[in-house]
C-alpha cells in the first residue's frame, strides 16, 4: 500500500514546508542528535511526565516516547482543518442540546431514534436539563488522520474526557529547550496559551448569576493514567485540583473542604467519567464521585465540563451520522470527511464485514484507548477468528471501517530514521465562542507498520508545528 508521507512527496523530494527542517536535520551531526534525544528522555523522566498503564503493576509509571522530528502543517492546510473542526463541534453541541430537549433530529427521521434512546451513553437524567450556553462538549479532542492521497478524515470525536493536551504543551517546551535555533528559523504558531483559553471557556459557562466563578479540576486521583495532565492543567490555570472526597454538596450547592472552612465551587472541569460522578445517581460503588452532585447540577448551581451524557454523541455507533447532523443543524456541507463505516447491527453490513475481516478495522462501539479493536491486515488468523465469534455473538457492539492508509512521517527508531504512521488530536474549546490553539497532539505508532497510535499501545508523540505565513 502506498502511504502519504508528511515530509516527502511521491517522487521523494522534500515538501516545501519541510525544507528548512530537513536541511537542518541533514547538516546536524548524529552525535548532537543522539545527545539531545538522551537529554529529552532524562528531562521527561525528571519532570515525571508519565502515565500509568492499566493492567500493569499498580502505580507503575511509564514515559510516553517523544520523537524529536516535528509534524509540520502549513498554514493553509490548518485553516481548512480548523474551519472543519469548528463546524463539527458546533453541530455536535447542537445535537446534544436537541437530544436532551425536543429531539427534532429524531422527529425528522434523520437518525434512527432507537440508536440514540437505547444507547448506553444516553442519560435520561439529562432530559430537559438546561446547561449554560447550551454547551455540552466544552472540551473536544477530535482525532484526525490523513489518508489516501493526503485528504483528512475524522476518526472519532472524543467528547467525554479527552486527554493528551499536556503532552502537546510539554512537547513544545521540550523542542524549544533542545533546539532553540529551529524556532528562530521557522514561524511556529504558539500553543502554550491553551490553559488560558481553557480557563476563559470554563469561566464563560458559570452558573447564572455567578460573576467571579471558582473553577476546579476534578481528578480520579494519583493513580489515574492521566493524573499528570490533571495536575498540569490545574496548576497552569491556577485553580484547585480536587478529588471527590474534597467536595461535598449541601443545599444543592457544591463546596470544597479547605483549611479555612467550606468554599463554594461553581465550575468543575471534571476528568471523571459519568458513571463515577455521583454515587447517589450513578454507580453506587464509586469512591471517586460526590454524593448529590447531579442534584446540584440539575438545579443549575454548578456547571460540569464536559456535561453529563456527551457520550451519546461520540459513540462509534452515532459517528456515521455526524455529517447528517452538520447538514441538519447548520445547513452546511461537512468540511471534514468521515470514514465510511459499516454498522454491524445492520445485517447487510455485518455480512460484508464478516466476509472482509482481513481488510477491515473492527472497533468496539464503546471501546477507547485502542483496546478491544482488530486491525485486519495486521492480525493473525486466530485473532480474526476470535473477532468473528465476537461479532456473531454481539453484532450491535461493533462497527467496522476500511483500513485507512494513514500518512506517515520520518521518526527516530532503533534502526535510524524510518517512516511511522501518525494521527492528530486537535483540542476544540467551546464556551466563549469556539477556540483552539493551532495544531494539537500528534501521536505516532512506533512499531513498524502499526496503525495504532494510542500511548497505551506503545505509541509516542511528536511536537506539532503549524507554520504561520
Amino acid at each position, binding site marked *: 500500500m502506498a502511504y502519504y508521507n508528511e515530509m516527502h512527496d511521491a517522487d521523494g523530494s522534500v515538501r516545501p514546508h519541510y525544507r528548512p527542517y530537513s536541511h537542518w536535520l541533514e547538516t546536524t551531526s548524529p552525535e548532537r542528535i543522539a545527545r539531545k534525544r538522551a537529554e529529552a528522555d532524562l528531562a521527561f*523522566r*525528571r*519532570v*515525571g511526565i508519565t502515565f500509568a498503564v492499566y493492567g500493569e503493576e499498580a502505580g507503575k509509571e511509564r514515559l510516553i516516547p517523544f520523537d524529536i522530528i516535528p509534524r509540520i502543517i502549513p498554514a493553509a492546510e490548518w485553516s481548512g482543518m480548523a474551519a472543519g473542526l469548528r463546524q463539527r463541534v458546533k453541530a455536535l453541541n447542537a445535537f446534544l442540546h436537541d437530544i436532551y430537549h425536543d429531539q427534532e433530529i429524531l422527529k425528522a427521521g434523520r437518525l434512527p431514534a432507537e440508536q440514540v434512546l437505547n444507547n448506553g451513553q444516553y442519560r435520561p437524567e439529562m432530559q430537559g436539563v438546561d446547561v449554560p450556553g447550551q454547551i455540552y462538549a466544552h472540551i473536544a479532542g477530535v482525532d484526525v488522520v490523513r489518508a489516501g492521497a493526503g485528504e483528512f478524515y475524522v476518526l472519532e470525536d472524543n467528547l467525554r474526557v479527552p486527554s493528551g493536551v499536556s503532552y502537546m504543551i510539554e512537547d513544545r517546551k521540550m523542542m524549544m529547550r533542545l533546539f532553540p535555533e529551529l524556532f528562530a528559523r521557522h514561524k511556529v504558531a504558539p500553543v502554550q496559551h491553551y490553559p488560558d483559553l481553557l480557563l476563559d471557556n470554563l469561566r464563560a459557562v458559570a452558573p447564572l448569576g455567578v460573576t467571579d466563578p471558582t473553577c476546579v479540576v476534578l481528578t480520579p486521583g*494519583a493513580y489515574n493514567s492521566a493524573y499528570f495532565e*490533571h*495536575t*498540569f492543567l*490545574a*496548576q497552569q490555570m491556577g485553580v*484547585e*485540583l*480536587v*478529588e471527590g*472526597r*474534597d467536595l*461535598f454538596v449541601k443545599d444543592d450547592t457544591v463546596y*470544597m*473542604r*479547605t*483549611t*479555612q*472552612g467550606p468554599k463554594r465551587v461553581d465550575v468543575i472541569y471534571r476528568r471523571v467519567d459519568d458513571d463515577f460522578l455521583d454515587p447517589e445517581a450513578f454507580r453506587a460503588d464509586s469512591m471517586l464521585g460526590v454524593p448529590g452532585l447531579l442534584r446540584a447540577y440539575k438545579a443549575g448551581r454548578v456547571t460540569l465540563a464536559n456535561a453529563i451524557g456527551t457520550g451519546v454523541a461520540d459513540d462509534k455507533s452515532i459517528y456515521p451520522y455526524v455529517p447528517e447532523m452538520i447538514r441538519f443543524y447548520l445547513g452546511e456541507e461537512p468540511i471534514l470527511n468521515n470514514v465510511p463505516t459499516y454498522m454491524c447491527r445492520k445485517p447487510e453490513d455485518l455480512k460484508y464485514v464478516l466476509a472482509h475481516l482481513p481488510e477491515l478495522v473492527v472497533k468496539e462501539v464503546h471501546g477507547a484507548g485502542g483496546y478491544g479493536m482488530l486491525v485486519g491486515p495486521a492480525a493473525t488468523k486466530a485473532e480474526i477468528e476470535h473477532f468473528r465469534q465476537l461479532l456473531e455473538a454481539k453484532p450491535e457492539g461493533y462497527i467496522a471501517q476500511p483500513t485507512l492508509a494513514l500518512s506517515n512521517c520520518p521518526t527516530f527508531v532503533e534502526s535510524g530514521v524510518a517512516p511511522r504512521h501518525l494521527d492528530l488530536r486537535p483540542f476544540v474549546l467551546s464556551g466563549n465562542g469556539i477556540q483552539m490553539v493551532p495544531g494539537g497532539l500528534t501521536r505516532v505508532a512506533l512499531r513498524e507498520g502499526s496503525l495504532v497510535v494510542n500511548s497505551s499501545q506503545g505509541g509516542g508523540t511528536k511536537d506539532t508545528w503549524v507554520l504561520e505565513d
Partner: protein
Amino acid sequence: MLSRTADHLFWMSRYIERAENLARLLDVTWQMSMVPQSLEAANQNWYAVIVLNSLEEAFARKYSEVNADNVLRFMVSDPDNPASLFSCLRMGRENAHAVRGTITAEMWETLNSTWLELRAQSYEQLTANGPGDFFEWVKIKSSLIRGVTIGTMLQDEAYNFIRLGTLLERADNTARILDVKYHVLKPKEEEGTSDFYQWGALLRSVSAFEVYRKTYRAVINPDRVAELLILQPDMPRSLLFCLKGVVKNLELVANDQSGETLRRAGQLFCEIRYARIEDILEHGLHEYLTDFMDRIYDLGNGISRDFLVPVSTQTQEAA
C-alpha cells in the same frame, strides 16, 4: 487551600525531615562505633536506634542478631520497615506526587530525582563507600529540597504547612536523639570526664559542634549540650527554635477552630523560652523530654483535626 492538599504538604515535609534526622542519627552512631569499645557496647548503641523508633518487634521478626550490618540494612533500605530511610523518602515523594500542582516544578523535580536515584540502587551500592557517604547524600538531598522550597515557593499557606511539618518533626527528632544519647553518654559519677569524641559526634549530628564552641568557648560538658539543644533560641535544630517557628506558622494559618492548638503551642513555647537547664536536669531530663515529645504529638493531632482531616471523616469517627 484544600484540607487534603495541606495534609499532603504537611506530611511531605515531615517525612523528608524525618529521613534527614534518621540519617543524622545513623551517622552519629556509625561514627561512635569507630571509637574503641567492646562489641557489646557497640551493638548496644546500634540497638538504641531500633528502640528509639519503637521498632523492636519489627526488627526481631527479620533479624535474630543485633549488629551494625543488620541494623543498617533494616534502617537504610528495607522497604518493609516503615521507618527506614527508603520508606521515609518514598512517602515524602508520594505525598509530593499527590500535590505536585501545588509545589513548584523545581521542588517536585528535586524530590522525584532523589527518589529515583535511591530506588535505582541496592543496599550494597548505596553503602559502597561506607554508609557515611550515603548519610551525607541524604542530608544534602534534604537540604536541597528545603533550599528549593525556601528559594522558589510563594510564602503562602502552602508554605506555612510545609514549615509546620518540618519544624514539628524536627522538634520531635532532636528531643529523641538527645534523650537516647544523653543516657548512653552521661558519665556515672565515679567515671570522671565524659568522652570528648562521643559528645562531639552527637553535636555534629545536629550540626551544633561549632555552635557549641562559639556559645560556650569551653570543653564539652553534657549539661551544656542539653542546654544548647533545648534552650538555644537561634540554633535551627533546638527545641526552642522549632517551637518558635511552629507558633509563628500556626498564627499565620489560624482558622475558626484552631485556637486551642495555638494556645497549647504557645504555652509550650513560653515554658521553654523561660526555662533553666538546672531546673530541667533536676526534674530529670528523660522525664522532661518524654513530656515534650508527648506534647509535640498532641500538637500534631491538633493540627490534623483543625486543618487537615476532611470534616466527613471526623463526623464518622464521632458517630
